[in-house]
């Protein structure tokens, strides 16, 4: 699929750029249209379990709504105009609703962009691309990769430790203090194991001739091809078009010291 085959660095930079630009937009319609666009692109050009996408989206929605709600409730009412809108059985100034919606939808727009990246990018390819396109030092990059491999190991180890401690009769902490103590007990074997593992991995890596030097060849060469540029053109183009149309209809506004 198109999104999965994109160069990960180009994808990441495009998304960072879009987030940056959206941060300066201060009307609710632009992010709203852009969310629809991003989700559409994600679903059309990406393959993943759609259900998981929804699960990931839910917390962001809650956060966005919280943002929306606190903005209207704690807004500066004195400066508001007399026009009001009824919302959830309460009267609010129109301006406040407008601002709150802009902030809430902005959060969602960021979320949908991040999820686009998250759901269509192989983390290993992303790191390899960072080394090859952005000259990230291999020392750091391969360290991160090795650590990435450790995560599932730590998870199973944590579960084992928990079961092992239960057998010893340390179960169900009643108070906060006990709970803290229990996590402290989990931490020791987990850390001891992790340090040992990390050391062994480092020795194994060095024994295979890894020196951290930047000069190296790649089994998975990450290149930037002409089709990779389609994505930024598409994403920035759509943002431009949205802004232009909204400007024409008078809905658009930049951030200009509001709030």
């Amino acid at each position, binding site marked *: 699929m198109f999104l999965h085959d994109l160069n990960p660095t180009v994808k990441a930079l495009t998304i960072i750029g879009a987030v940056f630009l959206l941060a300066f937009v201060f009307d609710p319609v632009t992010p709203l249209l852009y969310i629809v666009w991003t989700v559409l692109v994600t679903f059309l050009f990406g393959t993943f379990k759609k259900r998981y996408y929804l699960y990931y989206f839910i917390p962001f929605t809650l956060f966005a709504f919280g943002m929306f709600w606190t903005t209207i409730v704690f807004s500066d009412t004195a400066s508001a105009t007399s026009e009001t809108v009824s919302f959830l059985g309460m009267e609010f100034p129109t301006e406040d609703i407008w601002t709150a919606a802009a902030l809430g939808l902005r959060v969602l727009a960021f979320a949908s962009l991040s999820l686009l990246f998250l759901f269509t990018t192989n983390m*290993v390819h992303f790191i390899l691309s960072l080394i090859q396109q952005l000259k990230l030092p291999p020392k750091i990059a*391969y360290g991160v*990769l*090795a650590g*990435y*491999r450790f995560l*599932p*190991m730590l998870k199973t*180890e944590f579960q*084992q*430790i928990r*079961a*092992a*401690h*239960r*057998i*010893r*009769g*340390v*179960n169900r902490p009643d108070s906060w203090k006990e709970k803290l103590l229990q996590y402290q*007990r989990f931490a*020791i*074997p987990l850390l*001891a*194991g992790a340090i040992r*593992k990390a050391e*062994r*991995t480092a*020795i*194994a*890596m*060095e*024994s*295979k*001739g*890894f*020196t951290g*030097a930047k*000069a*190296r*060849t*790649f*089994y*998975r*060469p990450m290149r930037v091809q002409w089709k990779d540029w389609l994505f930024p053109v598409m994403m920035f183009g759509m943002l431009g078009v949205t802004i232009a149309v909204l400007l024409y209809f008078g809905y658009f506004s930049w951030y200009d010291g509001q709030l």
Partner: protein
Amino acid sequence: MSQEVIRVEDLTLHYEERQKPVLSHLNFSIDEGENVLILGPSGSGKSSLTHCLNGLYPRELDGSMKGEVYVKGRRTDSYPAGEMAQNVGVVFQDPETQFCMITVEDEVAFGLENLNTPYELMVEKVDTALRSVGMEAYKTANISELSGGQKQKVALACILAMEPEVLILDEPTANLDPVARKEFIQLLKRLKKELAFTLVVIEHKLEGWLDLLERVLIIHEDGELAYDGPLHDHLKTYALDIHEMGIQLPYATRRALEQEWTPPYPLHIGEMPAVAFPENPPAKSAGKVLLKAEDVHWKSILRNIHITFHEGEWVAIVGENGSGKSSLSRILAGIQSPSKGTVSLHGRSLKKWKENEMRKEVGYVFQNPEHQFITDTVYEEVAFSLRHAGMKEAEWTKIVEETLKFCRLDGLEEQHPFLLSQGQKRRLSVATMIVEDQQMLFLDEPTFGQDEKSTSDLMSLLKEKHENGTTIVMITHDMELVDKYATRVLVMNEGELSFDDQPKELWALPDLVDHHLELPPREQWKRAVWKREEPAYVSS
């Protein structure tokens, strides 16, 4: 004349935190194509020697290194960092921690990338290396999904891809089950014929290695070279010394030592005389029903399990990795609830038992002893459950002392559990599980990764416990232990119980290999002798 590839001159190695040298005044050289075994007790600096040979030391050393190490006539520290990997490759012990990439092909390519191999050549070399270890079908697989044996094959492929002249294996099979171990050694034998490399092996278990290795370097506890010469001849005469170092001798040799035969000792079962076989004593008749599992299912892992355990039994659970052994033992011990069916202890469903009441009846020793430690000293570790059971201090101090003594941990009371040796850690984890006089003890691969000495210490401890009436259920891959100790054996196969009877009935099965099981050496010996005697039967 064969060429010298490694020469070590007066090598002495000190670690910063230790007074005594790890290696002291070593002198030896290894020729091209030789097959060398390095032996020594734990802590004699064998792994440190590996680091010296592949140039990791002195670069990464906290301490001092004196003397010279030459590889192909050039001092190791005169090679640019990274280039040594082309000369000396190492496969390490732990299959989990020698990888840094996610998939098999990326990992094999990693070393080649470090050597700046051009792309086209790299693609070719990755394929060749994977084919040579028979793992080409797993090229795109995730390493985490492979079995331990497969991981070690991948680790070997990674090194072979770099085509080093010297291959060092640092206890490559210590964490593998016997079948995977055998496969790995077979693979090496084949590779040794196909590719020309010099082989240096560090090992604790000699079974299977002897056909491959000809020369031995023995390093003493004080880091000095004690012997350098032909392996087989030395072993045939000085097997006892090597045994006392904590090295596990081949079965035939061990047997000979036990029977106090005179040297030269046999090294293979085939060389053993046809004397009376020690038959196992008949199993004691089982006592009352203790634990009963009825129609137990768990997720898609276990199906339709019916088992009854009686007092005084010693049950071994065997089977391939992933066949559901651990899951079964956890359900039986009440750590995990079955998704269907019931497990009952003393006729009462486990669900109705209170957790702490049940723990007084059933103990469970996890594979990694460290996971079970919760306090800062050995003494507190053993005292923990008694203290929490609300017993009076005067009563429990005596029990704690007795338990420590029983597990040979007396004198270590104030040590931190994490600072104990492997064998001591294992015995401590057993101690914590028997201190409340539990009637039933589950052990998940208790001898995994343990050396000969701690294995035999542990087994004699369990044996004594068993003779005092404790029912023991242990998961193991070691058929020798099953043969020697178990009164009953359960074979798990793809989540189902496929065999449940006495061990001798299992050995008689014709399709043992299909279960990924092998005969214990005692049986192999017996059969080897039968075979030798067969013609005699015909002629008479």
